[in-house]
């Protein structure tokens, strides 16, 4: 209770070392791994992704003999085993949203922005830690999901795929690694914009899913020229575009560029807004 730990009568002119970006990065990492919802989100992602795939695969195996010869020939063990993958990945939105929205809810954002008044640093640190976690967790969940699907197919003597296959590795590992950060980054941007978890999650889902609801209703030429370039479809083009046929899919390299542009737009827009608005 004494002030003995305060340094008395010191000179205050000594220059302080400039705060490195790694300090901001480390503190955002601490926040992310100490938010309970992070671990709940990751567990649910694994549960739903593998669970839905297991169910869908089991249904496929069970009804296999009822399928027509064409349907049997069209069966793709990679794509079919990733049925649950999307449900798992959607949950990653929560990683980004909560790392921002909980701070606004508690008021802690003011502490964050006082410690690190250069707001772009805070934004970038949040983007990087969430992207890293989403990337690693996304791949782990997707591999588990893929293996669960293959195990069920094998049990029913259906064709199976192995991760060693080029297509399988691309979709299950590379595709997920590249696209897993997209939703959480959108979540960060929307949470900074709306300062509310519920609105931010709704906004991200609208950005991703509204086009695919309305997509089939509009002429195919527009699908190719417009919808294909939206973030959700660009993601799908990279992850599973090689496995199915749709006018809404882009060449994966083009899709990667399109996706990168979207990320720059969302992160850059959020940065501009953060610098203009009061905390």
């Amino acid at each position, binding site marked *: *209770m*004494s*002030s003995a*730990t*305060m*340094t*008395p*009568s*010191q000179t*205050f002119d000594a*220059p*302080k*070392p*400039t*705060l*490195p970006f790694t*300090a*901001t990065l*480390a*503190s*955002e990492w*601490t*926040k992310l791994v*100490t938010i*309970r919802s992070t671990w709940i989100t990751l567990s649910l992602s694994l549960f739903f992704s593998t669970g839905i795939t297991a169910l869908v695969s089991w249904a496929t195996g069970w009804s296999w003999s009822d399928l027509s010869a064409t349907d049997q020939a069209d069966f793709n063990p990679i794509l079919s085993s990733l049925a649950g993958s999307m449900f798992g990945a959607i949950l990653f939105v929560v990683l980004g949203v909560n790392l921002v929205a*909980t*701070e606004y809810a*508690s*008021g*802690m*954002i*003011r*502490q*964050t*922005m*006082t*410690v*690190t*008044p*250069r707001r772009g640093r805070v934004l970038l640190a949040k983007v990087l830690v969430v992207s890293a976690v989403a990337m690693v967790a996304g791949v782990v969940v997707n591999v588990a999901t893929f293996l669960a699907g293959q195990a069920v197919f094998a049990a029913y003597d259906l064709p199976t795929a192995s991760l060693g296959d080029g297509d399988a590795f691309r979709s299950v590992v590379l595709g997920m690694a590249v696209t897993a950060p997209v939703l959480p980054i959108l979540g960060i941007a929307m949470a900074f914009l709306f300062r509310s978890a519920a609105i931010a999650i709704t906004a991200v889902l609208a950005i991703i899913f509204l086009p695919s609801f309305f997509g089939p209703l509009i002429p195919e030429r527009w699908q190719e020229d417009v919808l294909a370039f939206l973030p959700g479809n660009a993601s799908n083009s990279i992850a599973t575009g090689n496995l199915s046929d749709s006018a809404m899919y882009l060449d994966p390299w083009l899709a990667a560029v399109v996706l990168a542009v979207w990320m720059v737009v969302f992160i850059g827009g959020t940065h501009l807004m953060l610098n*203009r608005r*009061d*905390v």
Partner: protein
Amino acid sequence: MITARGLTKRYGDKLAVDELSFEVKPGIVTGFLGPNGSGKSTTMRMMVGLDTPSAGTVTVHGRAYRDLPAPIQEVGAMLDAKAMESRRTARQHLRWIAQAAGIPRQRVEEVLDTVGLADVANRKVGGFSLGMAQRLGIATALLGDPPVLLFDEPVNGLDPEGIVWVRTLMRQLAADGRTVFVSSHLMSEMQETADHVLVIGQGRLIADATMASFTTRGGGDDVWVASPDLDALAPFLRTAGGAIAPDHNGGALVTGVKAAHIGEIAAMHRITLHELTPRRASLETAFMELTRDSVEYRAEGSGPDGPATQEAARILAGQTKVKEITNV
């Protein structure tokens, strides 16, 4: 050293802070006084870069807060004690801040000790009382061992022992040579702590003075006198140059005669005194006079003694007796 030049903040049509210019000097405690809604918190938020001024500047050692290379090692601020995530423990809360500021972990233990929270360091801050949260907020401000400290209403929610502790801490920090800037609406508290006062009302600076000269302005020589024979005493006091404002409690507030002199007069004329109290809490009076025109929520048509002004006095005076103030 904090320097404000024409500092202005506008929210839509409302002018929250109106062209404030002042300097806050090191080595002393500077009190920042004003009624609720007068722009104190907005001014402090601009000092740490949370709000951007609509016009003007505020700098610390000549630099805008956002341009400081190591912000919380230059300026420690306790603005909103409850702005923390309730699930974190006190230690965890300080640790992420230390991490973000590149401050060694050991310093967290030091400040926990300084503010007396070492025993509850592993308790979740959600269960903290306002007083404990205030102490944690003060610990946060001290974390970077900064030469400049800002405290927004630091004694809110503290028990008497805590208030004395904060007062001692502020004085100690100033004695170290630090710049200490403390806002409060508790006039009496400031009188015990601050060497210099800045007073604002409706966003405008209405006083920038040493505590001594500020309280003199409020008529710093009031004496409270209670006597069963007040009517007999009154003429002698008037002869001595005093002005007397009687109170229906059988006492009177005497201005212009020192307490010792009143006692001598009473003794000379064998008049019994029940109470003879020099009133040091005249900061309220000075404050009320200065802010009479700038209390924001005064009721329509109410004069200086109207109910809204009395309400303002009640808020401003904190624990002091409102009746006495409004009767001055």
